[in-house]
């Protein structure tokens, strides 16, 4: 492993949760677009959530049509919005659907190419043609109608009063704007982009669609002791020796012996297991001096160069430990002595600055660099030292990841690639989200 990888690893695993989660967040429609008004035949309420027809409805080009202010977000499983028909007016020609950015005329969604609309007057779906196709019931005053996009099945779906009425292939590419239209006197519609509770159980729909996929996945069979083998390899890789030992005791009697090839693999991962365990223990207890001493003793090559990354991280951690116990003066002294030499080295600069920032706060644990003081930080440093020791393994392939991590990387990369080949639509795989879903008891702090 290239040494600078340690820092890289350190860097992105040390950052708090939210940063990563935000990457997946896209803006969603919040209101009707009043800026690039499509037609002069509507008036939009001040809260930008309802529209009323003001034209005279003489032909097909005086439709009161409005798009949402933003396209439907697509890096997710599905999107959904609803309208409520407050007044179906004289003719009840309300429609709901999706249109693209280039939709620029006063026509119903569905009539033009690359638009799709479900019309209340006839209950037909229009897919870019003047002729509609049989689809769902008609709808009128007092009805709540919803339109959605399922990015996984690549379908539009529509609901009336909370019930799914039909799905149709999503034949349009690119960003799609929720669109609503009114087309006769007194017609008035309000839009719900999720600011109010939906009439349709969208969450339930999503999870049942998700289940369909899950059932297909669960049908795949894998050898029964595969998971156990991966867990053992993981424990060995990270030097969790005691856990590995306990698991070994609990399983060896009940499972057939593992074949030769795998056994070799495990021996390989056992390299310096005990040493790695001891160092992890020391770092987890905050005994950084002892950890450094042990490294000098057993792996001088890793700390020979006192500007090495392992040295840097351990000195940083020592500094953090001093801040933790409130020994600020000592921390400053230690910083001058051991950390000053790293100033100016670009690889370390960011971490170093963040570290020093701990001194600024009266309650550093509550500051934006507070994550340094969390227990996970010690774990991150311990992992870095663990990786460094593994890199000293004289011969054989140097496994920089546990098998488990390798598989999770492959899984994530496959899912991302699938999405990018699907016009960027659909959700990415997130281990973190998966671990927090379903009926797990939330032991995580909910503050």
């Amino acid at each position, binding site marked *: 492993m290239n040494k600078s990888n340690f820092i890289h690893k350190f860097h992105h695993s040390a950052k708090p949760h939210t940063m990563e989660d935000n990457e997946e967040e896209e803006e969603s429609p919040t209101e009707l677009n009043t800026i690039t008004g499509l037609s002069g035949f509507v008036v939009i309420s001040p809260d930008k959530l309802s529209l009323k027809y003001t034209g005279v409805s003489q032909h097909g080009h005086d439709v009161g049509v409005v798009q949402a202010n933003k396209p439907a977000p697509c890096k997710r499983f599905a999107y959904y919005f609803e309208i409520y028909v407050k007044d179906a007016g004289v003719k009840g020609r309300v429609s709901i659907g999706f249109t693209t950015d280039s939709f620029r005329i006063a026509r119903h969604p569905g009539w033009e190419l690359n638009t799709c609309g479900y019309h209340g007057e006839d209950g037909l779906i229009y897919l870019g043609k003047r002729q509609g196709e049989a689809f769902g019931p008609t709808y009128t005053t007092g009805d709540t109608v919803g339109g959605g996009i399922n990015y996984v099945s690549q379908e539009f779906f529509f609901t009336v009063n909370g019930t799914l009425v039909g799905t149709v292939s999503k034949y349009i590419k690119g960003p799609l704007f929720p669109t609503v239209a009114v087309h006769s006197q007194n017609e008035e519609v309000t839009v719900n982009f999720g600011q109010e509770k939906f009439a349709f159980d969208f969450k339930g729909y999503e999870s049942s669609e998700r289940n369909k996929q899950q059932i297909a996945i669960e049908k795949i069979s894998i050898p029964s002791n*595969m998971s156990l083998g991966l867990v053992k390899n993981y424990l060995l890789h990270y030097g969790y020796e005691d856990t590995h030992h306990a698991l070994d005791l609990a399983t060896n009697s009940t499972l057939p012996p593992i074949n030769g090839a795998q056994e070799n693999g495990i021996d390989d991962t056992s390299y310096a297991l005990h040493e790695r365990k001891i160092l992890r223990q020391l770092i987890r207890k905050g005994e950084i001096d002892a950890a450094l001493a042990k490294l000098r003793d057993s792996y001088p090559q890793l700390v020979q160069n006192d500007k090495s990354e392992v040295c840097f991280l351990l000195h940083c951690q020592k500094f953090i430990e001093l801040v933790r116990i409130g020994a600020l003066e000592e921390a400053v002294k230690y910083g001058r002595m051991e950390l000053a030499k790293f100033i100016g080295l670009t690889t370390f600069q960011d971490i170093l600055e963040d570290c020093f920032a701990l001194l600024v706060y009266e309650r550093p644990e509550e500051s934006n660099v507070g994550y340094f003081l969390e227990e996970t930080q010690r774990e991150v440093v311990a992992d870095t030292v663990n990786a460094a020791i593994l890199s000293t393994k004289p011969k054989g392939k140097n496994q920089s990841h546990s098998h488990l991590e390798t598989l999770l990387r492959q899984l994530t990369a496959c899912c991302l690639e699938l999405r990018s080949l699907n016009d960027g639509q659909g959700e990415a795989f997130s281990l973190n989200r998966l671990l927090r879903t379903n009926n797990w008891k939330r*032991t995580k702090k909910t503050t």
Partner: protein
Amino acid sequence: MSLFRIFINQLEEDDEDMATSKKMITREEWEKKLNAVKLRKEDMNTLVMNFLVTEGYVEAAEKFQRESGTKPEIDLATITDRMAVKKAVQNGNVEDAIEKVNDLNPEILDTNPELFFHLQQQRLIELIRQGKTEEALEFAQEELAPRGEENQAFLEELEKTVALLVFDDASTCPVKELLDLSHRLKTASEVNAAILTSQSHEKDPKLPSLLKMLIWAQNQLDEKAVYPHIIDLSTGKLEDPSE
């Protein structure tokens, strides 16, 4: 077929290849993507802890909590109780298991008639195994038959089980699989799942599902791209893209 026809066919095939041509991703490009993946150690630890807890490796879970600081999602003490129930069924001590489940949470069996029936059925099987014919008959009539009256599926199961009594040599009995150890394991895992559910915990660990998801995702991506696969999940070896 005339040469010309073959030629045309060839052309058509080529056309088809063009239309469905897959994206080629070299090993180098793919490795770049793999390295760019962000994975949190904390999450992997949680995944491992979930496996240890769900599978009931309580000592390992305790050690793992100490060594990695990962918090188990449920009280580890409940694992010990759960494993004791599971073990009792595995060893054929069904009565003992039922008592233990009720100690743990009487609602589990109250709200789960199917599970209760399967446990009683297992108890009947154990009596038959031990050759206690009279006791078995009495138990079947008093405890199981009333349940069979309420539920057709239970009745069929019961009839199947009682058939074991008819055969002197159980190995010739068409339902002899009921006497297999695997049937005990099946019942044990059913009760294990019910206890986990009662603790608002999922009955299966997450890890096997993730491995299945990996196979599924690779299969899906196969339709659109050629890229390095992992075929042997136990080593995570990355194979060169073929084709």
